[in-house]
């Protein structure tokens, strides 16, 4: 995730052009290898075991390494060695930028310092960002949000990364009393507290999102796309509901809905999180209340 965040910063500061960025991402994508493949090439897992974990992964919110440990195929220390071998997005981004001679290491160090100062980040924040671990990065952006919102957004970003776009990234959230957007998919949940989760954005990005989730053969038009994004939201809320149910907090998901074209949510304290899916902006919206209108 941090590779994308840093890339945006470098473009904004005029250190990299969009074409350079495209080339860097291309090289980076060729370098990234799946953890399962590394495990196999290191003779730590059989293809059947990898297949089994991949399947399990499609059903749960857990990572490959964690599942492999649970099943007894890998130890914790083997997983951390594999993760090091895999490298993280930040390092492979820097490596690719340097290999392609768009930057040298001094430029990178300087850019990181500027980035840290411009954003007021601590050294710990920077370490968390550089880890490229979603669970460590998301809290940096959400520190002043209510607990349930933080937790739900964490689940949402993890799920989007797993089921839609591995390169999803987040910006600072903002609150408002009105969200003016387009193509709005939303689902309310009611129970021990009330909740609204929504995703909205431009048609091409949402179609790409839906294809990433459901598969190209099932998405023919914008209605199909929004319909399947509703199911994606249902899936995110379901995982969140399971997590909080372990603490004896219960919510029920109501049927999701969508609205094509210009859409508005009116409510107090709407939390909006700008996200990037396929490097294009969408808005994730969380409301901890059932007091809202959609028009």
């Amino acid at each position, binding site marked *: 995730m941090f590779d994308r965040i840093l890339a945006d910063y470098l473009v904004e500061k005029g250190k990299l052009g969009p074409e350079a960025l495209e080339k860097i991402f291309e090289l980076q994508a060729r370098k990234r290898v799946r953890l399962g493949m590394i495990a196999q090439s290191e003779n730590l897992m059989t293809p059947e075991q990898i297949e089994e974990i991949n399947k399990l992964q499609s059903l749960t*919110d857990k990572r490959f390494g964690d599942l492999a440990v649970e099943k007894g195929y890998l130890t914790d220390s083997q997983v951390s060695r594999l993760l090091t071998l895999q490298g993280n997005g930040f390092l492979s981004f820097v490596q690719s930028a340097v290999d392609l001679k768009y930057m040298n290491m001094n430029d990178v160090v300087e850019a990181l310092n500027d980035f840290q100062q411009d954003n007021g980040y601590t050294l710990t924040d920077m370490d968390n960002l550089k880890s490229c671990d979603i669970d460590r990065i998301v809290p940096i952006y959400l520190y002043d949000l209510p607990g349930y919102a933080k937790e739900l957004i964490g689940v949402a970003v993890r799920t989007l990364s797993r*089921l839609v776009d591995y390169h999803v990234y987040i910006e600072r959230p903002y609150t408002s009393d009105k969200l003016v957007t387009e193509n709005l998919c939303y689902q309310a949940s009611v129970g021990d507290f009330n909740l609204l989760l929504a995703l909205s954005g431009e048609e091409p990005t949402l179609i790409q999102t839906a294809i990433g989730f459901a598969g190209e053969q099932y998405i023919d038009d914008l209605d199909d796309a929004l319909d399947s994004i509703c*199911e994606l939201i249902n899936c995110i*809320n379901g995982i969140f*509901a399971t997590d909080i*149910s372990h603490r004896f907090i219960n919510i029920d998901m*109501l*049927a999701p809905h969508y609205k094509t074209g210009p859409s508005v949510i009116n409510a107090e304290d709407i939390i909006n999180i700008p996200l990037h899916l396929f490097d294009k902006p969408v808005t994730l919206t969380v409301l901890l209340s059932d007091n809202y209108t959609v028009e």
Partner: protein
Amino acid sequence: MGTILIVDDSRTMRKVLAASLKEAGHYIIGNAGNGQEALDLLKNLSPDLPDLITLDITMPEMDGIETLKRIRAEYPGQKVVMVSAAGQKDKIMEALKFGAVDFIKKPYDPDEAMETFKKILG
């Protein structure tokens, strides 16, 4: 091999499920987007009821649980498999109490879902 009625408010999810059911050799006898539509369809089909109904839990107007109760009241032998997102354990328990034979989870793992259908339909 069997005849199946798919009940889900999401048309993409109906398409996804239908594709893997067809591939496994089953016949889709109908699609319904909500509970009432499912009940109407069953009335038309009766007495040639489907071998199995897949019934989504989260739907507008009449949800899967209410639909299940009505189906089982009207057609006591009808086999129903519930379709649920994560986080609906209580609803699944309730559905099983009201006579659902099993459940599958969304997003679908096609292999696991087909395994469940094979178990029920043979």
